[in-house]
């Protein structure tokens, strides 16, 4: 139906409306006033620049002032910023005001031309390309064509191989941590070994493995080794016999590195005994071996088996039995 309507007589284009003169076009007094306004705006910008320079030199860079809404603010940064803002903003306003009041505001019409070249030009172009390509003999000399294809296809490999030394191969690094049988749990920060009596029921602590003397702890270590120690009432556990044997008197330990995307699972809610990852809100139930009860994570946080050593400090019964942190292709999660 619309096709038909397009053919009926349409409303006509009345053409560009007649130009209406502004006050500044006809009244020299208005024009002079506009000129003064533009000049005043430029002057405001100049004042802003002077203010910026003055605040750089004269305001103590350590001085903080209290302002409503903004709160405690560094006086110099604020003065520099507002001065700079004024010096820039008023140049812009002046230019636009100038354009709007004093520069010609009559709309003009420019013609467009279709981009398409003439048929002859297009045909000429095609025949030129054919002709020139023919001169190179690419169509006839298939040996050159194929060998060129091969070499061009291969040449990209050299820069690729040169990137090999960007990093070492992962080997089994994603699957291992510093935890092993007999390694003491130590506080972070502080590096002090922990006795069960240090933790009250309801308490939570971040711990790390005690490293052999002389070994420095790196961020890479922490990224895999960080463990959360939580103490609840033993009767609140809902664990199978093996997992229960990994706890000690209500103290249970999980990897702090989220099994989803590796953020630190830092929010522990005492009442519900849930661990929450602040990045994507995966929620783990401490009483059920960090089972995922909400959010995108597909696996529980790995649990670390605990026991006491001869001196009564908490140690790992064994290393983690599965890789900690986010999943990766080689991870055997079955």
């Amino acid at each position: 139906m619309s096709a038909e309507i397009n053919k009926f007589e349409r409303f006509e284009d009345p053409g560009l409306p007649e130009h209406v003169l502004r006050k500044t076009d006809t009244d020299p007094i208005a024009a002079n006033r506009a000129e003064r306004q533009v000049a005043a705006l430029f002057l405001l910008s100049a004042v802003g620049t002077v203010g910026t320079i003055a605040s750089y030199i004269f305001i103590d860079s350590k001085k903080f002032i209290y302002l409503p809404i903004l709160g405690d603010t560094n006086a110099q940064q604020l003065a520099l910023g507002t001065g700079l803002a004024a010096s820039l903003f008023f140049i812009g306003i002046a230019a636009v005001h100038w354009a709007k009041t004093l520069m010609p505001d009559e709309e003009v019409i420019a013609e467009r031309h279709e981009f398409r070249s003439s048929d002859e030009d297009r045909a000429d172009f095609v025949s030129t390309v054919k002709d020139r390509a023919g001169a190179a003999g690419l169509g006839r000399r298939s040996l050159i064509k194929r060998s060129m294809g091969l070499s061009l296809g291969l040449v990209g490999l050299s820069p690729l191989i040169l990137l090999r030394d960007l990093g070492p191969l992962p080997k089994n690094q994603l699957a291992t941590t510093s935890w092993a049988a007999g390694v003491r749990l130590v506080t972070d920060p502080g590096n002090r070994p922990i006795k069960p009596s240090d933790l009250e029921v309801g308490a939570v602590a971040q711990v790390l493995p005690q490293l052999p003397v002389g070994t420095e702890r790196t961020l890479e270590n922490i990224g895999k080794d960080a463990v959360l120690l939580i103490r609840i009432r033993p009767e609140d556990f809902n664990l199978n016999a093996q997992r229960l044997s990994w706890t000690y008197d209500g103290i249970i330990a999980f990897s702090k590195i989220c099994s989803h995307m590796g953020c630190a699972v830092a929010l522990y809610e005492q009442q519900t005994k849930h661990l929450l990852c602040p990045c994507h809100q995966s929620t783990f139930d401490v009483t059920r071996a960090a089972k995922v009860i909400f959010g995108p994570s597909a696996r529980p946080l790995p649990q670390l088996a605990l026991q006491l050593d001869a001196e009564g400090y908490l140690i790992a019964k064994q290393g983690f039995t599965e890789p900690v942190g986010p999943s990766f292709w080689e991870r055997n999660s079955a």
Partner: protein
Amino acid sequence: MKQSERIAGNVAGYIDDRTGAAGWAKKNLTKVFPDHWSFMLGEIALYSFVILLLSGTFLTFWFDPSQQEVVYNGSYAPLSHVTMSASYASTLHISFDIRGGLLMRQIHHWAALIFLAAIVVHLLRVFFTGAFRKPREANWLIGIGLLTLGIVEGFLGYSLPDDLLSGTGIRIAEAIIQALPVVGSYASFFAFGGAFPGHVFIPRIYIVHVLLLPGIFLALITVHLMLVWYQKHTQYPGPGRKETNVVGYPLMPVYMAKAGGFFFIVFGLTAFLGAVASINPIWLYGPYTPGQISAGSQPDWYMGWLDGLVRMAPPLETHAFGHTISWNILIPGLIIPGILFTGMALYPFIEAWISGDKKEHHLLDRPRNVPNRTALGAMSLSFMLISLANGGNDIIATHFHLTINGIMWFTRFGLIIVPPIVFVITKRICLSLQRADRELVLHGRETGRLVMTPDGEFLEVHEQLSPEKKWTLTQHIQPVALTAGGEDANGVRSKAAGLKGKLRARMSLANATQVAIPTEREARELESGHH
């Protein structure tokens, strides 16, 4: 001749003798640009980019992109004697010990947020007005490229300070890389020079952030603008505006003053934001360590939709044959964004295929006149906004006293249910607006004045629209439905009669189903009917 004119003439002559540029310059100094507020959106993006280059250069003079551990002893007392990376320490140094340093950091960050916001709003303007149609498809693709790189550039930028928040962002990026099937662990170890976090990632992304990507930006922006220049700007329909002309103000002096002035206005406002609105106060977060985190971890706004998708992903992993595939990361982190951006890039070609339209378009569409496109845009926007809302679910939960779980479930279902509803509603609104336009053209504007006829009948006086207004509301060409395998009324052959042809015919029919444009004849017939 005045002396100043003579000097200008000499300079121009000197240059023209060596380049022959006088003819080109003469023509282009009076080049006509149409005027509309929405054409300033792209300008804002361009100016923010310039601001980013300027403020970013300033920051590089003091920033040390190194993950070597140092002990901080600058003037920010709460972190005194804390061990941290050199990049974090130098960011603190810029913030507290360089005069104007904090200001520049904040201008740089604000400019980045504005840069991406301007790109997105500019993209929406181009989409909803059909400015991407022939001959501007290439510029649409360049624009999509700029948006994609802009998101990456922004992420790399706020990752550089190596504070607790940005380090967490890098950790998440690492998990995405690590989740790639087969090559993930290798890609991660190559990117990080070993196990996460390592000591090389920040120096590496620094050079990408300050050299590689800005270089690509400069090249793409140059081509983007050259194409705008060469193809001439599109214009909104109106009296005197045709497909074959461009109506507006000449570059010199009006546009030079307006566009140049606008740069200073954008810069001034960004500087003002930098002065009064604190952004990314990295000193509050502390240095990055993988064992810690701050609650309410939020990415910058342009990453928020991605984060929202990741948050709402169902906990799906495939465990088989000793391997793990993390669908909970791959689907929201790579597959959905990939589909969205590919679809966006291909849209001009899909629309042209459906319409069979091979003509050049320089007059913009009023969004209501292309209901399906407008509805599709609104639908995509609702998808993004729901994802974005879930990206801030923790913040929303604490501010509005809702539960995170409730918001998550709402957005999980909403992401699937809401966009189709938005499509239907938007399309109905577009058609209603077309109907309203039609009424307006045929019956005029309701004046609210009631007149009693001698017979005692009450009538409302309608005021006829001006010819200019009537033309603006009726100038567009409505699409014609193609038939599968045959020819349409204009003789355009549709290619295939098979399933593809039928699909195309179906969509073409949907596009052609619109409220008829009122014609002068209808108006005349109505007029004579009244008397």
